[in-house]
């Protein structure tokens, strides 16, 4: 899952981006509203985390601009202001969720999972295909009840494919949602990653669940 974090306070920006990356998220960071708008305009994020008080372009104004552009990217707003009118104005501007600083990290991660799930139009927090079950909150994957160990990046790939199951996901799309802006999209790291995940979830005589559509991308579906 790819996130955009727009926060002007560098220590918090670094801490959050580092922590979220360790959770397997691909994270782009921006230090002000203008930079944040550039990222939002040119990329498709699973969720955006915006600070409310930003230099050059306020967080509320950034959300308005995003919604005016027709983008439905889920937005989690972070703010140090906890007054009722501040929360109301942020949500009215188009934010999907609101958290006051300082926040508990487990709560932040839970809200991010919720926003990602809703962004993909799913209500069930657990993803499954045939006998494969993926629990995003517990970070577990099982097949036929057997635990499968995945790295954070592999987990994110499988989660994304399962969220879009029965639909072809292009390499570009996969890349955009798994890797952040800093990483080189021309390498073959994606093919290697898909191959590893495919191998790990194929247990015994189980069905092949991740298929390659030549020239189109990948699809998670029953054969």
């Amino acid at each position, binding site marked *: 899952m790819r996130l955009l974090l727009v926060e002007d306070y560098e220590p*918090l920006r670094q801490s959050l981006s580092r922590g979220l990356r360790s959770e397997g998220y691909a994270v782009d960071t921006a230090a002000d509203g203008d930079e944040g708008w550039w990222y939002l305009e040119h990329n498709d994020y699973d969720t955006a985390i915006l600070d409310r008080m930003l230099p050059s372009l306020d967080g509320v104004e950034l959300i308005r601009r995003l919604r005016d552009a027709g983008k439905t990217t889920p937005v989690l707003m972070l703010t140090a202001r*906890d*007054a009722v009118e501040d929360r109301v104005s942020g949500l009215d501007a188009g934010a999907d969720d609101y958290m006051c*600083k300082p926040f508990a990290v487990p709560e932040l991660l839970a809200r991010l999972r919720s926003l990602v799930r809703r962004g993909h139009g799913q209500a069930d927090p657990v993803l499954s295909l045939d006998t494969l079950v993926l629990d995003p909150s517990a970070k577990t994957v099982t097949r036929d009840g057997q635990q499968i160990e995945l790295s954070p990046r592999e987990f994110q790939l499988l989660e994304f494919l399962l969220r879009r199951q029965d639909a072809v996901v292009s390499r570009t799309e996969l890349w955009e949602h798994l890797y952040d802006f800093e990483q080189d999209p021309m390498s073959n790291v994606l093919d290697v990653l898909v191959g590893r995940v495919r191998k790990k979830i194929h247990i015994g005589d189980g069905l092949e669940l991740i298929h390659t559509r030549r020239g189109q991308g990948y699809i998670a579906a029953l054969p």
Partner: protein
Amino acid sequence: MKRLSQRLWWALMGSVGVAICLTALIAALSVRSYATNGVDEEIHRIAERMSRSPWIPFRFIRYRPRQHIDDYALLILNQNQEIVFQSENWEPSFPQQLSAQQHIDYFITADGRHFKCTQWSIDPDENSRWRRRGRGRGRDRNNEDERGHERHDRVAYDKNMSLILYAEVTTLDQDLRSLYEMLAVVGAVVMLFALLIARHLRDTLLAPVNALSSDIAALQAHDIEARLETGDMPQELLLIHNRINELLDRLAHSRQRERRSIGDIAHELRTPLAALRSELEFASSAGDIPEERGQFMQEQVSTLQQRIDSLLLLMRLESEQEQLQQQSLSLVELINDAWSRQHDDTHQLHMDGITDQSIDCDPRLMAMVFDNLFSNAIAYSSSPEIGLSLSSNTGGTLQIHCSNACDGMQPGPCPQVFEAFWRDDQARSLNKRHYGLGLALVERIIMAHGAMISARISDEHVFHISITWPAYVDDTDLADPS
């Protein structure tokens, strides 16, 4: 305190009333003075001329009553008080020889008739000269003059003779009385008109003041954007009007600045704390920090966060930015919940007069009130007993008393306990739970609900906090209508 309209009303009516009365009085006195002076001058002139003439009867007949005088009556007495001459209309009841002075004036009323009187002593030297001349002429004259009129006898003057002249002014006095009555009636009518005019003037003059007063009264404390309308304001009031609007502007700017400040302070304090906390939690979950150290750091972060939150809440309450989410709550539940959160095994809560009463309040903030009251009582009590009592009075107010034994503080009121960051411990030894904001928050929360709070230490060294809640719902009455 009298209203301005009343003051103006009485000032106008007083001025008009005094002016009308003075005018009527002056008019009456002037007319009376004019008339009576004329009478006085006339009778003095007659008396003087006759006192110098031996032909008194003849002269007297020639003096016909003039303006304001109805009739004359004359009496001349010699030095032995014998009548030398008496006119036909002389009344026996008229006083005679009142004084031996040169001349005196007086006023009498007899049988409903009014008289101005003058009494003269006749000058003997002058009269002796006249007497000589009169005798000379008298010898040459017959009892009739050239035109055949009857000639009266001369009166021979002598020393110490008195001339008493009465002028009847009954008609004049009646005319004056009629004038006074007319003036009184006219004055009353003018006063009535003046009353109506004064009322109209008062309303007209005070209309802008009343309009300004209404506009100011309509200003709501919470609506800091409201301003007074200029309208058709007189120049004198425009200054007040503009100054009030300037003050409102300054108040609004101050509020906005305060609001911005609170937002900025929150941002400046909470954002680094957020960075610290997120770094700590990510590191702890990744196992980068030993569990014991991680827990210690987490506790310090929580303490810091609690103090920042308390400080910001206090600032919002002081600047009336905290919006209360009120609902009806059971007081017993509030108290029991708070006690269960705060109590330890060494302290006991003694409740008195606690019945199932409900109050309208913000649940989160009122929970904070009782948490702080119990927490402070437990922390500083020198006895294991904490007291809590409720009492209501006929005015519909509810009294909540929380008490605990305390040593070291002087008896008397102690409002300083509600000051932010006040602590009896001057060294401000770092206490994990108590840092001097708890009771300050309690006071602001209570005041935000429209209630009152006070603190005092009794002579028995018991610390009392009393809360007076303005109105409450007694559930016992609702549950049992009988």
